[in-house]
């Protein structure tokens, strides 16, 4: 079980990533693709978090003398993820804004029909 315990996050993360990618590959609706993108982002974030995660760890703050540094959760990934989430949100907002405008212009969100630019 320890294996599953240790790596469950990774499986979850990669699962999300694959789900996200799959959605982006097979779905034709722009909103769904954006949802896929969001899932992908979430997966990546989860992955980043899990890199630094130690089960039953402590906060990486030396508030007491007997804190075991090896039990501390790495703070850096969390900072990273925080940033990444912000960025993800920005991208998402951007994407949605564009989707709205696109719908206004094209009257559809079907990416198979939004193919004026090609070749």
């Amino acid at each position, binding site marked *: 079980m320890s294996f599953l315990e240790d790596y469950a996050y990774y499986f979850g993360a990669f699962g999300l990533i694959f789900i996200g990618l799959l959605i982006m590959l097979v779905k034709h609706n722009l909103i769904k693709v954006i949802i896929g993108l969001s899932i992908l982002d979430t997966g990546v974030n989860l992955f*980043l978090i899990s*890199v630094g995660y130690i089960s039953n760890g402590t906060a990486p703050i030396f508030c007491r003398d007997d804190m075991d540094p090896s039990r501390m959760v790495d703070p850096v*990934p969390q900072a990273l993820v925080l940033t990444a989430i912000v960025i993800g949100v920005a991208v998402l907002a951007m994407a949605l804004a564009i989707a709205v405008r696109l719908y206004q212009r094209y009257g559809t969100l079907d990416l198979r029909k939004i193919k004026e630019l090609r070749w």
Partner: protein
Amino acid sequence: MVSPVLLIAVPLGLAFAMPLIALISRRLPRFVPLVACAFNLIVAIRLIPTVLSAPVIQRIGGFSPPFCINLFAGPVGVMFAGLIALAGLVIAIYALSYIRTGPTVRYHMLYMLLLVGATGVVLTGDVFNLFVFFEVLCISSYALVAYFGDRNGLEAAAKYLIQGAVGSALLLMGIGLLYGLFGTLNMADIASRIGSVSDISVFVPLALIVSGLGVEAAIFPLNAWLPDAHSSAPSSISAILSGIAIEVGLYAVVRMIFTVFGATSIFMFLLFLGVLTVLMGELCAFAQTNIKRMLAYSSIGQIGLIVFAFAMASTISLAGGLFQLLTHTLSKALLFLAAGYMIHRSGSMEISSLNGMGRRMPLTSLAFSFGAFSIVGLPPFIGFPSKFLIVRSALEKQQTLFTLLLGFVLLGTLVEGAYFFRVVQAIYFKKSGDEPASRSLAPALPLISMLILAVLIIFVGIYPQPVADALSTAASDLLDRAAYIGSVLR
């Protein structure tokens, strides 16, 4: 002693101050990018003599590397920063009169953010920081591509965004893996430890990062967004995207591969990829009838050429690649700027609508042909020394493979020549259809910006020696991992 932080901080501050400035006067924000870029340019030029002797390491937050986020202002970084500032300045001048409609304040703000992102990417010494700056660059360019809010712009922006987001997700994943492996995000630190783990475990982040950055760098086949975005964006943005954004992406790829991973074995792969990119880009461009799409595909071809040069990984080839990068920035920017006004005048992006443009807009046409000649690599324009260096480096390998690949690359150049000369002919020698050949110049400001670029193109083309010297220093900086690690982890 100026600090490289200023290169990022000042424009960033100005960008966010833009809405405030707009409160003072609606006319003022237009000049802010000008000021910022001029400032950056001056700073970069001031920095160059310093960094040529030794790179400036700017630590942020008081820690010392590898724990802090550091800026590494080496020759390459500063040169790129200078280049970005230069291109930014010229295009800002152009945009003064080109961008008149729409939310202009936001345009200038996003434009500044784009430049900040680009400058950040080239100056940073931290992997995650790289990602952040990249996202700044990307998000602002998504928005800028859709600036006019027309059908094509929005479609291109949507596609660009989706691909860009996938790319950054991959990049982020790669960075996460790197961190998982080494527990550090400092490039120099990672570089110094990269040998300590097995090849296969380095490979996965490498593959992810190369694909992630490759999307932005428009390496074939990750470049599907490029023709759409470049052709649909406003011409000033096309110019900056072509001239700066993909270059910065390339820089990032090169920095990661050369300095961080030191992965010499991927070069062969990149070599073939570069040749393939050249051929794909040029062939697609050859079949185009839309001028901006043609220029965009030509950018792909140029990227291929630069990748080819970088992948040969010798001092000369790197210098050649950097030189080609410079060439591409200046020439393609010039081409897009000139094409922008010609399109503005004729109202269509079809090449056939440019017929007889040489009489209607003589100076703009002249600028366009300078750009075209330069891209093709004809002396005495700037394209020639760069092509010369690339050819020289390929031949100095003294291997049949390289000579053969060079042959393919030159084939690509030939095709490039074919379609560029076609356009130049259309501009000068074809009779325009119905419109009487009245002469009208583009407004003065765009002309000034084009003139600056044209003069630079010719001047460096005639006298490339100082640039080449500086670039070969930069190239050895890129190649010399030990020096990099040493100077950061001092």
